[in-house]
């Protein structure tokens, strides 16, 4: 028994769900050997319905046909919409009303058949084989066989794309992280071995935990560089699950890996080796477990002049780098720049003015007379948005000996930081 899917979408994936022997007959047609599946599905109608259901589930729009030989199934799938089952022995009758053009004959043969008035399968099937062989040759005979639904051939198998996924159904729900770690280690070991045998590595781990409450807990870990280090993967998963624990005991574990080519890079002879990417990822995960998520990374300036506008991103993650604001660089070889130490959030201050200039400052942990001052430096921006900003900055030397940057905005005075 053979099944054929004709339509659009990932037809091969649907076929591989039912059979290991799949042929990509044409870009829009896939044929597979479903012999023996009657033990699993029962009647051919049940099998055809299961195929159609699976196609709908995976978003494939296709006509499904089942027949005793592959070509009859292909003709039925191309000729009829929906689900069709070609009865064994009655193929010629079932396919009889289909147009001959469906057999895709050569242009010359098509023209000859048109001139003879042969338009349907049944017309071609009724012609004597000897006469066809004399007038149309081998191609004509093959077309007649196809039209009668009698053509027999072997499928040209399509190699199944390797899927790096492992699943584990647990006998009893797992509640603690430690036993889960043992199970994950087993899955990771199998997957990394399979990747290694194919000379591949992974840059993404997908963990799906089915919980006792019928809910699922999904985590995806993206690595900065392809790797095959199972021990590091296990540590990363452990840290991630410790930071994001599942809400209920786990009944089933599914772990998938994204197969990619391993990365090889030549380091410079006189350049200090950078941290190994997966090791750095692991260190970052450990640090984030201490300081909090999103508090470690490489700073990236945002394309705005709003003060203190930046974001943190993973090291090596430079996918979308927005244009940083134009900076007037100071030549640090000639004159090292002086930096500001930011107070996050800025400290609200009480400022006394004398002749329109700040003369006394009091804020959390800071208090004193203003000995020297310069300003105001007026800045504003984003006035075209719903979140505009505007402020007057002053640099001051306080009687406590430090230099500060303060600013005045609509909400009052603030200390932004100290120069250092």
């Amino acid at each position, binding site marked *: 028994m053979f099944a054929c899917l004709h339509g659009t979408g990932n037809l091969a994936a649907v076929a591989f769900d039912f059979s290991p022997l799949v042929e990509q007959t044409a870009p829009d047609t896939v044929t597979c050997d479903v012999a023996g599946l009657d033990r699993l599905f029962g009647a051919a109608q049940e099998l055809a319905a299961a195929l159609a259901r699976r196609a709908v589930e995976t978003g494939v729009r296709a006509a499904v046909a089942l027949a005793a030989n592959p070509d009859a199934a292909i003709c039925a799938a191309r000729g009829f919409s929906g689900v069709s089952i070609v009865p064994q022995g009655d193929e010629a009758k079932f396919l009889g009303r289909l147009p001959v053009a469906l057999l895709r004959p050569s242009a010359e043969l098509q023209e000859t058949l048109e001139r003879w008035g042969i338009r349907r399968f049944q017309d071609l099937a009724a012609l004597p084989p000897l006469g066809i062989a004399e007038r149309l040759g081998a191609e004509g005979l093959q077309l007649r066989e196809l039209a009668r639904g009698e053509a027999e051939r072997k499928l040209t198998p399509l190699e199944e794309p390797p899927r790096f996924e492992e699943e584990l159904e647990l006998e009893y729900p797992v509640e603690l992280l430690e036993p889960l770690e043992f199970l994950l280690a087993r899955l990771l070991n199998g997957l990394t071995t399979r990747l290694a045998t194919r000379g591949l590595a992974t840059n993404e781990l997908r963990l799906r935990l089915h919980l006792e409450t019928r809910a699922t807990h999904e985590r995806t870990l993206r690595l900065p560089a392809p790797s095959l280090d199972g021990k590091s993967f296990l540590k990363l998963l452990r840290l991630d699950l410790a930071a994001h624990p599942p809400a209920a005991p786990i009944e089933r574990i599914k772990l998938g890996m994204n197969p990619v080519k391993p990365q090889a890079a030549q380091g410079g002879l006189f350049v200090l080796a950078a941290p190994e990417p997966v090791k750095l990822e692991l260190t970052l995960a450990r*640090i984030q477990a201490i300081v909090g998520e999103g508090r470690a990374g490489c700073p990236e300036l945002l394309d705005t002049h709003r003060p203190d506008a930046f974001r943190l991103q993973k090291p090596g993650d*430079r996918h979308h780098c927005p244009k940083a604001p134009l900076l*007037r660089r*100071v030549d640090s070889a000639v004159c*090292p720049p002086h930096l500001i*130490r930011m107070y996050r959030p800025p400290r609200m201050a009480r400022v006394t003015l004398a002749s329109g200039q700040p003369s006394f400052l009091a804020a959390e942990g800071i208090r004193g007379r203003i000995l020297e001052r310069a300003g105001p430096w007026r800045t504003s921006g984003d006035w075209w948005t719903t979140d505009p900003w505007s402020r007057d900055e002053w640099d001051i030397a306080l009687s406590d000996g430090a230099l500060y940057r303060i600013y005045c905005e609509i909400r009052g005075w603030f200390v932004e930081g100290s120069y250092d």
Partner: protein
Amino acid sequence: MGAALLRKQFESLLGGHLGWQAKPATEAVPSGIPEIDLATGGLPRGCLTEIFGAPSSGRASLLVSILAGATARQEFCALVDAEDAFDPLSAAAAGVELPRLLWIRCGHNAAHALRAADLLLQGGGFGVVALDLGDTPVRAARRISLTSWFRLRRAVEHTPTVLIAVERQSNAKTCASLMLELSREQARWSGGMLASARLLGGMRVAVARRKPGLALTAVFESGERMLATNEHR
């Protein structure tokens, strides 16, 4: 007496070579400020360097100068920021390549900063690991035990990493191989009501080497305040 005899025999076997017990010289990297490099010989790799001084004494300027130099040498650096005080904008303007800088924001927790620095050193591969406790209250910084500093010193030993601690006062004591005390001599001011005026013009900073050896002093001037262009939109 026996040890002295054995040593004499061993040295005679070495053909009179007496330097067999001498430690190999530590590699030093430039700080980015020639005056300091002249006075100190650079920052030693595999050692703890302590930079301390009062607020506004130029500690952050020196630190960023070191980071700019390291990132320019294609080294990957880490900044463990105990008080969340780092300003990426002025650091970028000072020449720090931000994609080569890992910034750990510890949210006003010095204990977290110490643990993060330890993890970074254990991970390895960094050119510079800077532990910034510059805004940490003096009392909190003093509470860091000498054992913690010793642990950091041991972690960085025999690695090519330069470990830098920035503080208000020296706390690492014997664990630091190089101690630099910074103090501001004067601030240069400029500006006025004009829109094109600058504010704080720069600082004159004195650096005193407290360790090793005799105290040496250097003076450098930090530059003008960095401003993003086209601020008036």
